[in-house]
């Protein structure tokens, strides 16, 4: 960093450089936290830190709208969703993070990581952060951030914007397919008939859920419901999802 530091101070204004440095430190520390924290909740909160640092960088780049979106969508919505999922799965569950699945994996990973780092440094060479604006990619012309973004979305990026809607439909269909109870091969009559499942139904995850629900007399026969309902997506989300959440697992202590 030593050859870059004078250049950094020379061509950029001091506040810019300071803001960048502080935000960069926040980002990197947060990212390290995500990887190194043992507790998944702490890791998720570290992610908030990183995302917040990036929002600061956006502000520094005069992209205030993006900064707001970054905070609202990522830190506000997505990380909260992460936290929900972590809570649902149980915060107390201990992961054996120290176990080496493949022998020597860490050494290889460390070596490869250092190699990539060296490569980045080599590629960057003298091109350290200077605060100078990009000659090619900067925002140009009058108008506010939002206007520019809106213009881009509805002109140059119209097709990508519309394809995003296909992505959303697909996400719904995919989630329904994966979340519902697997249908049985043989239609079975007899075991509990209420499709909603009762509290206490063992949470069915993957194929194990099928067997588990056969063993418990009160099991919601979501598989049977699936056959009646036709295995056609939409109406089965409730079945699968409802039967899976088990109160004991939902409430973390």
């Amino acid at each position: 960093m030593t050859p870059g530091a004078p250049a950094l101070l020379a061509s950029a204004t001091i506040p810019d450089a300071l803001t960048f440095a502080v935000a960069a430190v926040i980002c990197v520390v947060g990212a390290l936290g995500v990887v190194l924290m043992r507790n998944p909740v702490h890791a998720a909160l570290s992610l908030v830190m990183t995302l917040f640092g990036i929002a600061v960088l956006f502000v520094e780049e005069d992209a205030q709208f993006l900064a707001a979106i970054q905070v609202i969508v990522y830190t506000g919505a997505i990380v909260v969703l992460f936290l929900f999922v972590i809570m649902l799965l149980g915060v107390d569950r201990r992961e054996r993070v120290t176990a080496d699945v493949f022998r020597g994996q860490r050494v290889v990973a460390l070596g490869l990581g250092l190699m990539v780092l060296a490569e980045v440094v080599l590629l960057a060479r003298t091109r350290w952060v200077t605060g100078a604006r990009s000659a090619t990619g900067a925002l140009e012309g009058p108008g506010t951030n939002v206007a520019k973004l809106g213009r881009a979305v509805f002109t140059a990026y119209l097709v990508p914007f519309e394809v995003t809607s296909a992505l959303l439909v697909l996400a719904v269909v995919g989630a329904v397919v994966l979340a519902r109870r697997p249908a049985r091969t043989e239609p079975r009559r007899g075991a509990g008939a209420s499709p909603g499942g009762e509290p206490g139904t063992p949470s069915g995850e993957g194929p194990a859920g099928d067997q588990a629900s056969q063993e418990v007399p009160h099991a919601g026969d979501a598989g049977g419901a699936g056959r009646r309902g036709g295995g056609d997506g939409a109406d089965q989300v409730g079945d699968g999802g409802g039967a899976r959440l088990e109160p004991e697992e939902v409430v973390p202590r």
Partner: protein
Amino acid sequence: MIGLESLRGLQGALLGAGGIVLPHIDYTAILPELILLGGMLLLLVVAALSPRRLATEFYATATVGIGIASLVASLVLWKDVVSHGPFTAVAKSLDIDGFAVLFLVLVSCVLIVAPMLAVGYLRREGIEGCEYYVLALISGSGAMFMASANDLVLVFLALEVLSLPLYVLAGFDRRRAASSEAAIKYFVLGAFSSAIFVYGIALTYGATGSTNLGQIAAFLARNVLTSNGVLLGGVALLLCGFAFKIAAVPFHMWSPDVYQGAPTPATGFMAALAKAGGFAALLRVFVTSFPTLRSSWQPVIWVVAILTLVLGASFAVVQRDIKRMLAYSSINHAGFILLGLQAATAQGVAASLYYLFIYAFLVLGSFAVVTLVAGRGDDQHDLSRYRGLARRQPVLAGSFTVLLIAQAGAPFTTGFFSKLYVLQAAVAAHSYALAAVAMGSAAIATFFYLRVVFLMYSGSAPVEAGVSPELVEPGAASLAAPALAMAAPSGQALASGLVAAGGAGVEPAWAKRSGGGSGASGEGDGAEPPGEATTGVPETPLSSSPWTVAGLGICVGATVLFGIWPEPIIEFARLATTIF
């Protein structure tokens, strides 16, 4: 009643004086994609509204119909492109040229054949419903957008639209743990590679100031970058993302596990579509946008192609599971297609297009056979399953033989011409070493394809109930060893050598087959009842579903027909490359 004009006025008023000019949307240019997406929504709505469960055949028929409609739309577009030349549509984010239309046609064909091959499976496993077809249609639209995308952002979104349904399809059979495992693996690694890809887009944007492929090419043609580290980093990351999608070697790890775990018809679909979409975008981005950086990326592709060819072929040899074997063989095929990219010439791209086109049918058909042989439960994939298949199901074994020897590159099949053209392109681009390695890998590949063929036609082994793996291995190896020995030396020679390799490899195969076959009937008649070699679940007879027969018929028919009469597709691929 509000007229269209007043609506326009309202629009203008809302946008203000300096309002934006909305781009002209050329609906014929996006008609194939619109048909797929619209059809998909229609299927969903029909499925949700119908009071009783609709048969899976209904959805399959609808999907085939949608596929045919998009095929027609694509062919209309082809006529347009041929008569008026290539054009960009909707604010230059789509590039409608011969290259794109070829992939539109290919994806439509895949969407016509794939549902036919899935019907029997879905019924057999009791997982009917519209979702399989809906996901297939969305995935197809993603592949189409990938082929015509002229903007890196669109490439990325299309990549996601292509991949996400494939992740779900991989985990479609929720009762098998292997299927869920495949989905998770594919998803996690796929998401990781997508992130790398986006990083590549960001760096490329940073270096060139645009995500539009045309503008990137124009920028690079006008400017000489004094320090192009950022751009090279971006290009490298883009290549990583693509390489994952096409399962090229350093990024192939997911492919055998996912191919093995996914429901078998979904595996075939995934192999055909992901390869087509991935290669479409890879070829377009690298050949049209970064031609000025050719000296930088060509050596990388060279290394990747060699690794892909050699490792794909050698790992396939040691597999005992037919799906894993086909997975490694598809990695080997990816290496061959990369030859065309490495050449970076029009001839090379045309050869790659041709290869992709015929590969889709080969892989769809092969996995359809595997689906049937696996039997109910879809988990009997050991090679020993194929022993004596010719006696139990001669038509099925015959079809599989055609598909396998076509993959090996035997003459009179499409596989021969596809390999020949990529090798010709590589030789024309002076990549002699690469061509030689490719031919060596083809020789190795011949071995494992023929091993399955031998197994199918060697029913004579005195096996009681159940075949132990130990019994199969030495027999198959000793049978196929001469083929390998004959094929390997000729693999060192150049283009004409391939003919020799293919010929030498295949001739003894047929000779042995007839010998083994007659021996089998001689010995087998008295001793064993047919079908004794199967353990557990019986395999599904080909006649169980007319849909499968039709789909497999199309695949085998196309393989043989275009193997004897390859001009139409070759001409198609050549034209597609010239109208670029």
